[in-house]
């Protein structure tokens, strides 16, 4: 993840355009190989970095947030049982789908949702390779854009107007 203003105020992580494109390519390859229902790269807070899915499966943000929560809960649980920092995955085998959540470095994980027709061994094997590809991409630093460009002087007043317009009771 790139720091936005090197050595200065760092408002948090970001994903550059170039990173996004590379990540999408990786996810598409994995999805094609395993005919996945969905694959999402998500950060620790459950924010979606990139996704590839077939058809619609409801609110993807809700899905990502829940995955982030269950992953974090399982990791805490493992820690309590004395497992060191090697907690890597959560697996749910359901009736129609398998859900496989797997760490990508320290700050991200991959949610892989596959149909029951695909062997879990295959899913694990190819997911592992994808994770190896994703690691270096997410570590890239880029000076592509700076936060100054994002918040120009008008931003606060424009935002304020937009909040008044959107965030209100709809009758």
């Amino acid at each position, binding site marked *: 993840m790139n720091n*936005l*203003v090197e050595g*200065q*105020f760092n*408002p*948090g*992580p*970001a*994903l*550059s*355009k170039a990173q*996004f*494109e590379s990540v999408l390519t990786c996810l598409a390859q994995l999805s094609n190989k395993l005919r996945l229902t969905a694959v999402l790269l998500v*950060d*620790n*807070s*459950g*924010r979606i*970095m990139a996704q590839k899915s077939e058809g619609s499966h*409801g*609110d993807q*943000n*809700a899905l990502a*947030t*829940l995955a982030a*929560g269950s992953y*974090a*809960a399982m990791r*805490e649980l493992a820690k309590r049982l004395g497992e060191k920092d090697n907690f890597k995955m959560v697996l749910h085998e359901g009736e129609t789908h398998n859900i496989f959540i797997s760490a990508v470095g320290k700050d991200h994980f991959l949610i892989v949702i596959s149909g029951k027709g695909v062997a879990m061994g295959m899913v694990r094997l190819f997911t592992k390779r994808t994770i190896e590809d994703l690691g270096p991409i997410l570590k890239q630093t880029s000076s*592509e*854009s700076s*936060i*100054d460009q*994002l*918040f*120009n002087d*008008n*931003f*606060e007043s*424009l*935002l*304020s107007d*937009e*909040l*008044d*317009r*959107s*965030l*209100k*009771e*709809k009758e």
Partner: protein
Amino acid sequence: MFIHWALREIHLKLVYYGPGLGGKTANLKYIYSKIDPALKGDLVMLNSREDRTIFFDFLQLEVGQIDGKKPKFNLYTVPGQVHYNHTRKVVLNGVDGIVFVADSQREMMDANLDTLLDLEKQLVMQGKTLEEFPWVIQYNKRDLPSAMPIDEMEKKLNLYGVPFFEAVATGGQGVFSSLKAIIKQVVANVHSQLGQAERMRA
């Protein structure tokens, strides 16, 4: 804050914090029930059978584009009950701003104070402090007979003079004003820090 340059999205994480039964979930329920469907995702609630939050509630809101950027607000509540300390820590990770939902009933003042201290502790673990962090206070349950006068609550809880709002979350009073205020606080905070960074460079 997280910036997705390719999609031009700015994500902010806002957390509703406060004592158990104070009305955090009621805030999200009200927002969800009243906002334009085009602007909201699903309301996710992880509850016990008694409707107490055991992990978090989640709701994503978006507003129209601003100068070509799409702000997205990720709203979370924490479980207020004391023993859910570890889940609160997980939910607070990466928080950008907090709405502290205080329970106005006199008998809840100690719980408000304990929870505020707990919040300060959690922030310190993330290298932040209440003094510098963006937050607002919502004095909820103003409709109840045992509600304390606002001045008295202000003296006890509003240590740093942050914006505060009187609310009846179940009926919606004060809900949207608290939400807008915390968003503005967070953005103003980013701005002022950028200004500081600039002055240091100069």
